[in-house]
């Protein structure tokens, strides 16, 4: 299974990349999202990562994920605004303080989408095993990857259940989704962990590991391009225009 079932195609550009290359891109992208703060640097990386995400998923799927991210961002802003009512000095709104976190989120989302929509779980497990990460990191990571489709399936069923008993108020809707989902996640996580244990996942990381195959030309080209993009983004950050906060 892929880490997610949002698309069915296995013949995309991203599917042809080795899982290690995609994992490396995710790690590098996450670090860049933390370190970089220039809208230009982040914009460059977001543009390139969007091209990669579109190589893994349908535009409609990517758009849906962006909309979800935007909704989360708005929710966070709403919470910040409520805090701002109590502590006005804490909240100084400006355009860049909104754009930069959004770009950081998009960068991470693009790379995670690429990884989860184009990588068979078996390949991911095999690579995690081969790259010799410690077992305490690999086992939860592997089970977490397998958890994604189960979680999506649970979400769909709980959404259906909530529609059968309309809540009326926001609290009712919230309870109808949050309470069953919380319990279901706990049960599912337990089931999957038990299944993984019985399949011998812990033995996998103690046993002999197969040698890593060499990366293909396509992987090396993408990693080289990513490295160049990171260098360019860093250069833009330190030598590019200095953006002053714009008041809203």
């Amino acid at each position, binding site marked *: 299974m892929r880490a997610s079932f949002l698309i069915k195609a296995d013949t995309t550009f991203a599917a042809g990349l080795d899982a290690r290359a995609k994992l490396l891109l995710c790690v590098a992208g996450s670090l860049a999202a933390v370190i970089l703060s220039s809208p230009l640097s982040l914009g460059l990386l977001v543009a390139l990562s969007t091209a990669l995400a579109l190589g893994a998923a349908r535009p409609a799927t990517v758009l849906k994920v962006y909309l979800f991210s935007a909704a989360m961002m708005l929710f966070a802003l709403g919470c910040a605004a409520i805090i701002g009512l109590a502590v006005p000095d804490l909240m100084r709104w400006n355009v860049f303080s909104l754009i930069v976190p959004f770009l950081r989120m998009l960068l991470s989302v693009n790379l995670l989408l690429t990884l989860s929509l184009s990588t068979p779980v078996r390949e991911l497990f095999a690579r995690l095993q081969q790259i010799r990460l410690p077992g305490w990191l690999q086992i939860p990571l592997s089970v977490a990857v397998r958890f994604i489709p189960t979680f999506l399936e649970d979400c769909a069923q709980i959404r259906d259940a909530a*529609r059968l008993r309309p809540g009326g108020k926001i609290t*009712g809707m919230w309870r109808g989704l949050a*309470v*069953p989902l919380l319990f279901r996640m706990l049960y599912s996580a337990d*089931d999957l962990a038990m*299944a993984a244990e*019985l399949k*011998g996942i812990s033995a*996998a990381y103690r046993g002999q590991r197969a040698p890593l195959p060499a990366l293909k030309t396509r992987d090396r080209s993408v990693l080289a391009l990513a490295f160049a993009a990171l260098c360019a983004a860093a250069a833009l950050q330190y030598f590019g225009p200095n953006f002053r906060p714009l008041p809203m």
Partner: protein
Amino acid sequence: MLRFSSVTYSYPYAAEPAVRDVSFTLAPGEAMLCTGRSGCGKSTLTRLANGLAPHFLRGNLRGEARVKGERTLDSTPAQLAEQAGTLFQDPERQFFALTVGDELALTLQWRGWDAERIREAVAESARLLGVEDILEHTVFGLSEGQKQKVALASLLALRPGLLVLDEPTANLDPESIAELADTLAALKQRGVALFIVDHRLYWTRGLVDTVLVLDNGAVAAEGDFSLLDDAPLREKYGLRAVDVPDPRASLPHMPRLESSDFFACEDLTFAYPKGGQVFENLSLSFTPGRVTALVGENGAGKTTLARLLTGLERPQRGKILAGKEAVKTRALARHAQVVLQNAGHQLRMRSVAAELDDAARGTVPERDRPSVARAYMEDYGLDRLARRHPQSLSGGEKQRLAVACAAIRGPRMLILDEPTSGLDGENMRRMAQSMRRAAANGACLLVITHDLEFMHPVCTEKLVLPEHTGETRR
């Protein structure tokens, strides 16, 4: 192959042991059935046999369990799995790969087998279970029976001497149950020991050598299968029947009505995006007070019909009528309710009483709600549980509460999707009673079920959906 000696086990933070002083021996090539009420400790025995208890689940174990002579305490669950393969109630929950072939190979790959040995083991177990033709298929497109076989083949690839099966028939139709029984009989003949935990008993006649009846964590009765022929014993321990007639052929077809002023659908046409046509111009009229069994092969559209009638799917064409008036998809929940297979998804409040009160909101006047909720709790045998958190209830109790919550809204149509999957005899009979009560109160009930034992006394007629034709046979 499997030996329990005075095993007593308590889960962490539990006041009482889940199983107490259990002793038995299972030799290679023997089969044992363990049955009893829900919550009597059957599943705990499977977890003790495969080492999840206490290695994974912690808790306190006294006495000892041995698999192939080795104490389970001395090996990890992963090591024990090489001797004792465990089949879960829902095999999909134990799949970690996309295709059947990958699923069969994954466990071996994780254990460091070389490629040639993996290929041989996969080919052999696939041949043994008859899944060699579907090795390239995705595991999620398989029927429940096929999933069961793939999960079994995956376990057998490790060539274990013992199979532990936790409610293997809970999601299977009668034909798949018969196939499973044949498969297990063949494995038994090859010397594999079988430890089967199940509520359904009839299919194990002729397969099992020993029956263990558990009650409140202890062995209440032990003997060969004829032990279960004792009706008072079955009644005492809440067991199901041992002889189950197949009512599917004898049930009358749902009468064809020109129209119904109660609940009906007219010219429903529906296809999933990128999928084939499921229904074309489907018209059905339902009568109050009837309990209709919705029958059909896997993929015939039983669940899709339930989703259409309750507004969870929007038809491309056609309409659904309540009292001769067309109802919009979004408003259908007022007239039709479905109790999903996993009842826990529908429960969201802090207590059983609050759950029923919340369900009645919008359909029962506010001042009457507490008394109506109390009456439903009594009717559905939930009054003792009024203050319990719904998510802490057993499977049977959750099912009953979900049915009560659907019924309290007074729907014209009440649909139940596999309401007795995993229920013991006592809870199954209670569920049957609840459904007859809902029908007597004037609702029309549509039941999607493979459970012949439940269908026989409850359903008054059948509606047959032939596979993929979009037609109905009535």
